């Protein structure tokens, strides 16, 4: 299983939040198998991005929040500090709405930067990153991202997310800053790349055009109190 969530309840503490505030995220159970692709929808402010941050472990699931989030068979929230970061580097890839490519690094270096934090031997970094970019149709691997078209930047971002052969790719509104034509191309790219590498894809979006692209879809609100895996 690439992702398994059980009994997750989360709300932000501090900043005026009271102990009686409603849970932002409430998921009884959610499973995504290796190679599976799931679209998670919901309106703005329903906690879609927060869920991805919890899954990737960049946000802590600290009391009073509860639940278990397993990625590739391991409760990521039970890991602490650098161990969690290393686990994320190895098992999770992330694609962002604004790509978040590193300024001052070439396309190739952006992909190699992901490998820096993995356990892939450094002598393999260049070939692996170059191969990945080539497979996604990027020829100008030494170009700075701002010299590439929006579509090419998206490909670099996808290559970076897949560099460490993760079990799970999290995509946070990956097409929100693209026009409809580029949006469709970008989603095809992400889905195909994940499929070819047998990586599970969890995509959150409030874009209605995305619905048709996924055979399995969930509304975050509907997961409140859900029990068991929904069939694809």
């Amino acid at each position, binding site marked *: 299983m690439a992702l398994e969530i059980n009994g997750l309840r989360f709300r932000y503490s501090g900043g005026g939040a009271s102990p009686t505030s409603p849970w932002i995220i409430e998921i009884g159970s959610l499973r995504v198998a290796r190679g599976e692709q799931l679209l998670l929808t919901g309106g703005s402010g329903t906690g879609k991005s927060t869920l991805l941050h919890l899954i990737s472990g960049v946000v802590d699931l600290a009391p009073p929040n509860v639940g278990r989030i397993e990625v590739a068979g391991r409760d990521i929230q039970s890991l602490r500090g650098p161990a969690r*970061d290393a686990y994320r580097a190895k098992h999770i890839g992330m694609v962002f709405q604004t790509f978040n490519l*590193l*300024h*001052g690094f070439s396309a190739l270096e952006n992909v190699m930067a992901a490998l820096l*934090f993995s356990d892939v031997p450094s002598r393999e970094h260049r070939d692996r990153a170059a191969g990945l970019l080539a497979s996604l149709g990027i020829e100008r691997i030494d170009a700075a991202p701002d010299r590439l078209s929006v579509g090419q930047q998206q490909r670099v971002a996808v290559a970076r997310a897949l560099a460490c052969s993760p079990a799970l790719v999290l995509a946070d509104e990956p097409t929100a800053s693209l026009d409809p034509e580029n949006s469709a191309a970008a989603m095809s790219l992400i889905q195909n790349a994940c499929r070819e590498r047998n990586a599970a894809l969890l995509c959150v979006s409030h874009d209605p055009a995305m619905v048709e692209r996924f055979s399995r879809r969930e509304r975050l609100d509907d997961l409140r109190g859900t029990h068991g895996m929904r069939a694809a």
Partner: protein
Amino acid sequence: MIMAITDFSIVRRSLRSRLFSTCVTALTVGVAVALMLVLLSMRDAGRQAFQRGSGNMHLLVSRDSSPMVSILNGIYYANAPRAPIPWEKYEQLAGSFPLEFAIPTQLGDSYRGFPVLATDGEFFSAFEPNVGEPWVFASGRPFDTVFEVVVGSTAARESGLGVGSELFLTHGIAQSRQLGQADAMTPHEHREFVYKVVGVLEATGSAHDRALFTDLTSSWIIHAHDRRKLDDPSIRTTSVDDLIDADMLITGIYMRVATRPGMQVTASLQTVFDQLRRDTSVVVAQPVQQINALFAIVSNIDQVFIAMAAVVMISSAISIMLALYNSLEQRRRQIAVLRVLGCSRPRVFGLLVTEATVIGILGAGLGVLLAVAGAFGAASALKQAIGLVVTPAFGLELTLAVVTGAILLAAAAGVVPAVMAYRSSVADHLKPLG
């Protein structure tokens, strides 16, 4: 072609992406390091330079206004003494005490700005400019008759004088001329008397290196000639036979009290010193004592300068902190992305501290270069201004201590922005801009 990205690649890119800020910050560190190095090295070199020159003399007798002025004039050639000592007085003093030597000296003339010390043969045979290091001739020999001159190493190098050169001397500090230069004659030149260079000295590291040395009789003759021309402008020349008592003046006496062989001091030194002090017609100075007194004054100023350099160094550390802090505001998204890619918080902390350290290393390297240039510039200025020959020396230990201190300070300056980066929220900075 890079094979892999490393933590240092990230640091390098970050510094390069704000090149101007990096350079200015490194320059600030460089100036602070240079200032500290120059002050420390010049202090040590200055102390050594001041300790040279008095050599094996115990006492300096003159008629200057104070013992300190006597030392500055008599050993460092700061100015020509104004009050002379009659020859009879010299003979009286030289015969009154158990002395190893009593070398008469006279200052007042110059050659192209280099002071000329008129003295006797004992100056080269008995007096040592540095204890245990007698004079060494690079070429030629000491003077042994009138109108012969010996040139110090620096004066020879800078004036181009060598054995066989001929020259005129000048009253005071006016420029005198080497023969063969046809340009205008200065009013106080002793053009009737041609001096010939018979020797060039090896360097001693003291103020003597920039002086010329000739015999007393020559000096008396040229001044007697001036006196006689006032009475009779038609006279052509003056010889030793024309000297009268009023011409036979000196401005100082280098004295060494008799000691046992191999000993530098003797109990009778204090007795001789005390007896000379009772003679109100002269001023007596112990060079060692006066140099220590001078350094007691100078060291206070030293400490102020070193404290200022330390403040500049701390300011440079603050500038590193500010530069990194300002860049952090623009880099929070990059740090968040690195965190998502698997970069741990301690590693982010390390990246920021490494950046600060690299700025420190660049600055320290620049500082060492600036210090070398600055110290030699300051040494040259000191030589020109007060005749003090200072050879700046950057001891390995001193340089390493300052450089290491600067780098550690720079690294410490990186801690505050590093802690901020460490604590930076990843989720908050991954949100789309706008």
